[in-house]
């Protein structure tokens, strides 16, 4: 069974994001890049399906500049068999739909039985690519899944989604697209041998032309990024405790209006 995992490279969760001189982008120098955590659940789940079935082919796919190779290499180090890197400056400003179109083209070339992605990328938090990809392919889609079981002859997949107060379980025919929610699994650490082995695995470079995307213009463009306004400085109330408490109560009631 072939499983395709779509991953996105994003800034590390601890990054202090700064807006660059061009207010349409963030400052990328000095950023540590990681696989978006939800996508790591997707990679892990694909590997588990393969291991459970005793055979299979896990292909990691990502769209982005050269640095994205490192994220793909991490997926290979975890155990993915091959990777496809959609690496074309023409796609640099891709929105979710263009990303989904590129991924759909890769899916058509690879024809996997299942595509797994994260429920959203933690950088722009759009959470649209999985559903758009399924739509473009005409495949069923289940988002935010917490558990899955592919049946023995890889015809259907049963998934569980957490909903308010319980679990919703349903079956989808394969091929299908699933998006992973936190709690689906605990992603493995790449082992050191895995990292060394990943050096020998193939990362196929793909251009927009190879995918016959035609018009590669995004429909959604960023106009501007704005930082949150800086927090006003705190105020220290000086003086005798008796008076300070009075002033504090007054300030909480009248200025902050919280009591």
């Amino acid at each position: 069974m072939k499983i395709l995992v779509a991953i996105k490279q994003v800034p590390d969760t601890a990054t202090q994001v700064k807006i660059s001189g061009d207010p349409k982008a963030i400052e990328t120098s000095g950023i540590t890049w990681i696989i978006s955590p939800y996508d790591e659940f997707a990679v892990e789940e694909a590997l588990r399906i393969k291991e459970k079935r005793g055979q299979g082919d896990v292909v990691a796919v990502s769209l982005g500049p050269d640095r994205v190779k490192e994220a793909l290499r991490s997926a290979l180090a975890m155990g993915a068999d091959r990777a496809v890197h959609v690496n074309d400056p023409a796609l640099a400003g891709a929105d979710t739909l263009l990303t989904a179109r590129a991924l759909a083209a890769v899916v058509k070339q690879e024809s996997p039985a299942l595509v797994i992605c994260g429920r959203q990328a933690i950088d722009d938090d759009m959470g649209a690519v999985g559903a758009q990809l399924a739509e473009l392919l005409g495949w069923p889609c289940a988002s935010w899944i917490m558990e899955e079981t592919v049946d023995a002859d890889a015809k259907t997949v049963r998934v569980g989604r957490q909903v308010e107060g319980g679990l919703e379980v349903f079956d989808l025919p394969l091929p299908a697209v699933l998006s992973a929610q936190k709690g689906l699994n605990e992603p493995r650490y790449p082992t050191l041998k895995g990292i060394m082995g990943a050096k020998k695995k193939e990362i196929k470079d793909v251009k927009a032309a190879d995918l016959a995307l035609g018009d590669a213009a995004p429909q959604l463009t960023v106009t501007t990024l704005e930082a949150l306004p800086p927090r006003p400085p705190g105020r220290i109330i000086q003086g005798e405790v008796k008076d300070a408490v009075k002033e504090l109560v007054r300030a909480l009631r009248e200025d902050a209006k919280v009591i």
Partner: protein
Amino acid sequence: MEKFRGVDYYGMEELLAEDERMIRDAVRDWVEAQFVPLVAEHHRAGTFPVGLIPKLGELGVFGASLKGYGCAGLSNVAYGLIMQELERGDSGLRSCASVQSGLVMYPIHAYGSEAQKERWLPVLQRGEAVGCFGLTEPDHGSDPGAMKTRARRTADGYVLNGTKLWITNGSIADVAVVWAKEDDGEIYGYLVERGTPGFGTLDIHGKFSMRASITSELSFQDCRIPAENKLPNVKGLRGPLGCLNQARYGIAWGAVGAAMACYDWALQYAQQRVQFGRPIAGFQLVQQKLVWMVTEITKAQLLVLQLGRLKDSGRLRPQQVSLAKRNNVQMALDGARLARDILGAAGIVDEHPIIRHMLNLETVNTYEGTHDIHTLIVGRDITGLDAFGAAQG
């Protein structure tokens, strides 16, 4: 405090290969998730989280730079980065990996018979078995050549008698690499298995340093081992010194990890701690301490990186390892003391990692050749004159 952010003032990142960076990051993440939450508790109790040993094996850190027998076959730079990240967690964690890799697997790999390699290397690599290294004795530390432990040849093997002291992982070891003298006055290495009659261990208590690490005494009383347990391919002090050279190399890197941990923590603390109406990081005296630390860490990073490249290209001389061990451990110890000072009273409690690193580094300064012994090694190398001093009387 935010989780450890690494220290890279000079863009060292670009001097590392992609797989070296990935290996460092994998170990850094592992330490953060698996070890950091446990360490303060184990440090208090004076115990090592032995349950992590198989997990370290699974990750692949044991014998990571060796080839074959399930080992990862990494470059020495990658191995060094692993040691750096482990010691960023705790010197005890790095010690466990150093002993297993450099002092147990290395001698079996370099000096052992094929049968010894097949028996021990795969299980040690996976962390299913633990090893220890017995060289130091109660009366012979810096001068191991004067050791008293004896191995007497019998019809079918050897009889060991003597005591080894300060042995990391001694009481949990499945196999001890023990160095002893035979009747010809030469030193040889022997593999002694746990449970062999006449082989006993006792843990050392009351340590103020390296608390999250097991340190034991090994005693041998008419302990009989079969002839095939002797390491066949080495004779003389060269054997244990060859091992120490591996482990010292790892320590030179590890010390940088401890220093980075203290610096990163102290920097964050100084930026948050307000006295006299502003963050203490804004005072010149505090900045001087932080600048000293980042400068010395940067120098130490460049030192070990080149040391690793020399080792990878087969041009490394042991004296160069001595220089790096000596410099980096002293740097880390001095840096930890400065960091401790920056935290004020908070610097003495185990809620912050600094006092733990500082106390650990006292051991690191002493073991695997004390700071001063490495001074003598480099001194002899550059002057051609031996300052070790001949035995008196």
